[in-house]
């Protein structure tokens, strides 16, 4: 048992570290390091531009999408090299946020299902950040139940005509392309009538409307499709096989290891270490210490769980299912942490403006953003189902709509 790199890993780490040291936008490092959930802007710069510039610089030097093949803009690196890069990139990795969906989900789906000419045309600019991609799966009628989506694609000659609505599309307002899951046959059971495409987000008939979140920010969008035409050669996978194609996408989402989930604990520990309560330093208060200790072991447990997965990668093995707990644990934890930080502030905790609030309102921002983390990318309940079914081998939920033609499934709960 050790935390040492193998000689090859150490060599790779040294090269990566040297390049990052010489090239990263250091003027933003401190600000990025201090940013936490719900607060990831830069004060004096547009984070989108800074992120794109950093990504392009990495791509030009061969440091973008490390695990992708070189002909598609990657470096052909091993999974462990990708993890080492993430460790070395550190706070600058937060700049990759807007590319996560494109690089983590759209890219791998394109690689598995797109025609060769599309791969060669689309993947390098996706890797370099010149083009941003989004993923158009969720709908008002299909969130956790993605296969319940209703957006229609109808064949017309060599084209498909799309009508419908997507929701919760991260970054659609600045995306150039998207992968789109549609219903091509409503007369068969729901999983069997789906087909996947990719499309230019500037196509006529695509309308993006930002959603104002409960936190007041705008990270997501509704996307409306009105007679949008997509050529058949932009279809990904067979007609009717969209569900299987989407599983590739989602598996890739959950394979991202080593990125490190945000728990809010380091922020809370730092805050409590300097905080004075009415009767003395917070860090010497028994109740505060007990709370901190309980969160400390969750945060460290997640950290070492991730290291176990990295060790498996390092040995060339597939990581076990342990990593599926990260999002589930971190999501509710960061919410609890933020709630408690405000509790410690007493009545003043209600003030959230960065100029007037405690520690620039970071915990208020965290509190308001946190509910979303427990929903996006698989709700807590879906994550528990995944653990119960895929890890523990418990039976799947009973699906009353499984063998029913999609157009015969009830659409209303009452009345």
């Amino acid at each position, binding site marked *: *048992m*050790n*935390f*040492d*790199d193998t000689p090859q*890993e150490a060599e790779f780490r040294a090269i990566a570290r040297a390049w990052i040291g010489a090239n990263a936008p250091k003027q933003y490092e401190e600000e990025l390091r201090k940013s936490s959930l719900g607060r990831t802007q830069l004060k004096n710069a547009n984070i989108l531009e800074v992120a794109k510039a950093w990504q392009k610089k990495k791509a030009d030097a061969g440091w973008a999408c490390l695990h992708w093949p070189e002909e598609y803009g990657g470096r052909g690196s091993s999974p462990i090299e990708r993890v080492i890069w993430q460790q070395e990139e550190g706070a600058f990795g937060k700049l990759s946020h807007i590319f996560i969906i494109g690089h983590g989900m759209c890219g791998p789906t394109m690689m598995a299902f797109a025609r060769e000419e599309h791969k060669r045309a689309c993947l390098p600019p996706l890797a370099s950040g010149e083009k941003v991609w989004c993923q158009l799966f969720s709908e008002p009628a299909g969130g956790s139940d993605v296969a319940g989506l209703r957006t229609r694609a109808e064949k017309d000659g060599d084209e498909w005509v799309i009508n419908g609505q997507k929701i919760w599309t991260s970054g659609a307002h600045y995306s150039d392309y998207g992968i789109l899951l549609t219903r091509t046959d409503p007369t068969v059971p729901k999983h069997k009538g789906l087909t996947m495409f990719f499309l230019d987000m500037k196509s006529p008939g695509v309308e993006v409307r930002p959603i104002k979140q409960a936190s007041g920010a705008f990270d997501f969008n509704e996307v409306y499709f009105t007679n949008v035409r997509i050529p058949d050669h932009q279809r990904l996978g067979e007609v009717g096989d969209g569900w299987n194609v989407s599983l590739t996408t989602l598996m890739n989402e959950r394979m991202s290891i080593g990125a490190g989930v945000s728990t809010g604990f380091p922020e809370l*520990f730092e805050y409590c*270490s300097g905080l004075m309560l009415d009767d003395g330093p917070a*860090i010497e208060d*028994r109740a505060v*210490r*007990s709370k*901190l*200790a*309980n969160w*400390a*072991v*969750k945060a*460290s*447990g*997640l*950290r*070492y*769980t991730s*290291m*176990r997965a*990295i*060790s*498996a990668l*390092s*040995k060339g093995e597939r990581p076990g299912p*342990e990593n599926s*707990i990260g999002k*589930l*644990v971190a999501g509710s934890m960061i919410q609890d942490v933020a709630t408690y930080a405000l509790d410690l502030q007493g009545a003043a905790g209600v003030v959230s403006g960065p100029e007037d609030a405690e520690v620039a309102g970071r915990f208020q921002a965290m509190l308001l953003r946190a509910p979303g983390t427990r929903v996006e990318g698989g709700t807590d*309940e879906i*994550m*528990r*189902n995944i*653990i*119960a*079914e895929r*890890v*523990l*081998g*418990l*039976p*799947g*939920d*009973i699906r009353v709509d499984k063998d029913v033609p999609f157009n015969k499934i009830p659409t209303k709960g009452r009345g």
Partner: protein
Amino acid sequence: MNFDFSDDQKQLRDQARKFLAEKCSPKAVRVVLDGKAPYDKELWKGLAEMGFLGVAIPEEFGGAGAGHLELCVIAEEMGRANAPVPFSSTVYLAAEALLIAGSDAQKKKWLPAIASGEAIGTLALFEGKGNPSPKNVKLTAANGVLNGVKKPVADGAIADFAVVAARTGSSGRDGDISLFLVDLKAGGVEVKSLTNLDPTRGQAEIIFKDCKAEPLGAAGDGWSILTQVLDRAAVLCAFEQVGGSDRALEMGRDYALDRIAFGRQIGSFQAVKHMLADMYVSATLARSNSYYGAWALSTNAAELPEAAAAARISATQAFQHCAKNNIQVHGGMGFTWEFDCHMYYRRANAMALGLGSLSYWEDQLIDRMRKKNAA
């Protein structure tokens, strides 16, 4: 990076699991649970023959001379099997105290006897309510004899010798405490068994009356040695707790697959699935924290105090969580003496207290994290 046990260590774990599955069935545990024997003597002998008792004891003292990582994987299996033997008292506490502070003569006398299964040892620290603290040590040592009462002492009624914490000063500092070795068969002690939460591991009261004792370690070093012993034991116990958590989770999972209610496997109800998923989460966090503790223990890293506290807290919580919800998944049957669920519930809750309670370790963890940050 290889933050995992080696193939040899995993093989040892498999070997221990196989051995315990055969020699330490729930039926065998019940002999002790039902009070028909104070501990499983046959199993103890077998553990000695397998080399498990002395796995971390150097060869020159009759052990296998492997290391703490090997001991960790065996500990996990002891926890999984709910083994009714004085393993933790003898191997994690008494042997570790001897390894840290024993003179050559003391090591030669006791360590080979531990490895061969001839001697059972324990640590006599507590004196009634309260957590590990120098101020809670009242038993006195003067002129080579001890006077006072220790309780509870784990496996005290079957132990051949004890490491005893005694007061040798009154300055109010840690240096007031010294450790002593006592041969419990040599007189001067009165031992009384105490009914306790987990009958598969005995607890006793030991009254020391002008009991002869020899110093273990330098006078006044007692508390610093104890702190090290407790940290090591915290990691090793955490592995037992991880093993117990996994077993309790498995029992719950298996029952959820077998039991039919409302015409379905109860494991198909989300209320049950999610309860089991949460148990898996606890057990996984505990395992990962314990691995870090194992790394720190095996390399004697400066991180050990913090890692030990984190492993202790995480594993204690996980075992309590899994043991309690295992009963819940079983419903009424889980609350019968006949089903094995309560054995793990008892063990989980007894282990949660043995080295000091959760609130004590929470406090320790924060102190240690602050120290690290200040450094």
